[in-house]
């Protein structure tokens, strides 16, 4: 317990949000962009393989003027969102169900430990045979990959419930639903939010993978098309877009975490600092 208090103090004094830190971050980004521009221009990296940043941005502008770009973007986001929603709903439901009874927990533990490390890309050939290059293939991969993040976190969370709080709930006769609503749920929520944050990133990776390998329409397919067509700058433009989506997904997940858990000590402490 002592250790945890100390940790949080050291992290809240870190100059993460200070003005100087912000400026340095911008300088870092500018230097990074300059390197991406200068290395190819001076021939340190062959511009055939790595075009200067300005060329990539021009290509990005040209792509953004086409409808295909925006359709791909929307298709990618749609697969990602549907897959993530299914994984979160199913993972949380299974987690609460398995976690609710010691019997089920013991019974399922080994199976979960075996199924979780199975790389979801192993399912690619099956998905291709069953569904071809449709959104259903993508969803199969995305859901299989991201459901574990949520399920495992919820299982941890349910186990973390304070026995005294549970006994209090029993003494006060909160009932089955009351116990879940007022004891299990608040304890599990931080774990669930961590699970959602991890699942959101994994779901994006698998969405792009499926588009890249199976050829489901979306940004990943555009990257494969640009690469096979030799449109190198366009390919990098799409890579940049996927990176930006990744950044936005991470930021949104953290915002959601803060919003949903504004009452939680770990968040309140950071905000007070």
């Amino acid at each position, binding site marked *: 317990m002592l250790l945890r208090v100390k940790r949080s103090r050291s992290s809240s004094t*870190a100059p993460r949000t200070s003005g100087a830190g912000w400026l340095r971050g911008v300088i870092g980004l500018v230097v990074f962009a300059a390197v991406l521009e200068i290395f190819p221009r001076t021939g340190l990296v062959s511009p055939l393989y790595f075009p200067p940043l300005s060329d990539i941005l021009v290509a990005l502008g040209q792509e953004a003027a086409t409808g295909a770009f925006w359709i791909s973007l929307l298709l990618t986001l749609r697969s990602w969102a549907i897959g993530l929603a299914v994984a979160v709903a199913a993972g949380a439901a299974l987690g609460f169900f398995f976690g609710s009874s010691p019997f089920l927990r013991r019974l399922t533990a080994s199976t979960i430990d075996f199924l979780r490390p199975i790389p979801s890309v192993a399912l690619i050939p099956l998905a291709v045979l069953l569904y071809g290059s449709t959104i259903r293939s993508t969803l199969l991969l995305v859901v299989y990959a991201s459901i574990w993040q949520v399920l495992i976190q919820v299982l941890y969370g349910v186990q973390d419930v304070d026995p005294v709080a549970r006994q209090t709930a029993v003494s006060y006769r909160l009932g089955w639903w009351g116990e879940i609503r007022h004891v299990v749920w608040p304890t599990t929520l931080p774990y669930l939010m961590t699970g959602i944050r991890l699942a959101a990133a994994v779901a994006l990776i698998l969405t792009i993978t499926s588009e890249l390998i199976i050829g489901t329409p979306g940004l990943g397919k555009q990257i494969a098309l640009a690469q096979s067509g030799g449109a190198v700058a366009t390919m990098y433009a799409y890579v940049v877009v996927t990176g930006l989506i990744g950044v936005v997904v991470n930021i949104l997940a953290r915002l959601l975490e803060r919003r949903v858990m504004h009452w939680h000590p770990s968040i309140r402490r950071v905000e007070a600092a």
Partner: protein
Amino acid sequence: MTNALSRLFWALALPVVLLLVWWFASAGSQNFFFPPLAAILSTFRDTWISSKIVDDVLPSLARLLFGYVAAAVIGIVLGIPIGLSPRLRAYVEPVLEFLRAIPPPVLVPVLILFAGIGTSMKVLVIISGCIWPILLNTIEGVRGLDEELANITRSYRFTSRGRLLHFVLPGASPLIFAGLRQALSIGIILMVISEMFAASNGIGFTIIQFQRSFAIPEMWSGIILLSLVGFVLSVLLGLLERRVLHWYFGLRAAQRGNS
């Protein structure tokens, strides 16, 4: 003794039931896509316990191992100075956030341009995908080191080598292992899809060949092989983690007991 037996029972009960269900439900299966489990298992033996181990399985695993270890070394070596210096961290953090957010699979077509479709491309893909979770977790781990302990190492005039070996690395190791674990699953994904995208050997390549030639039991046996690879590697990492972090698990268990 009875304790061990009962643990064994609980560990095996559900998997055995599930396998039996699969076995009997698929026994007379006429469905082209879902052959009987018996057929898959006998195909597994014929397909993989053969020259394919040397030609396809070992090259894949060697690339994975090489890329993973290289990513771990680079990630930890870079992560320690960045974690120790708040100033350096402020400069590089946004760039790292962006690089980390790029879904690693898109690196496959990018690195094909640089390194062709040979072994070096696959190792590079694995390195460049695995490095981010390790690097960022090392940074977080070093950043979260106990300040009082840091002061103690200064008072006792630890050499920088001693400080690194006895304070920084052990203190950051729980988070470094969390990064290694994330990196392992990314590494396996990249091993497979870099072979599916373009290759002439490897597990991923072979499975895709089976699928394209509609060799369904063989394809299923490949899926099972990949599952086993994922499971065994994760168990091995778990063993290593237990060994290196035994003090940490003990500490956490003690804290749990107290509170």
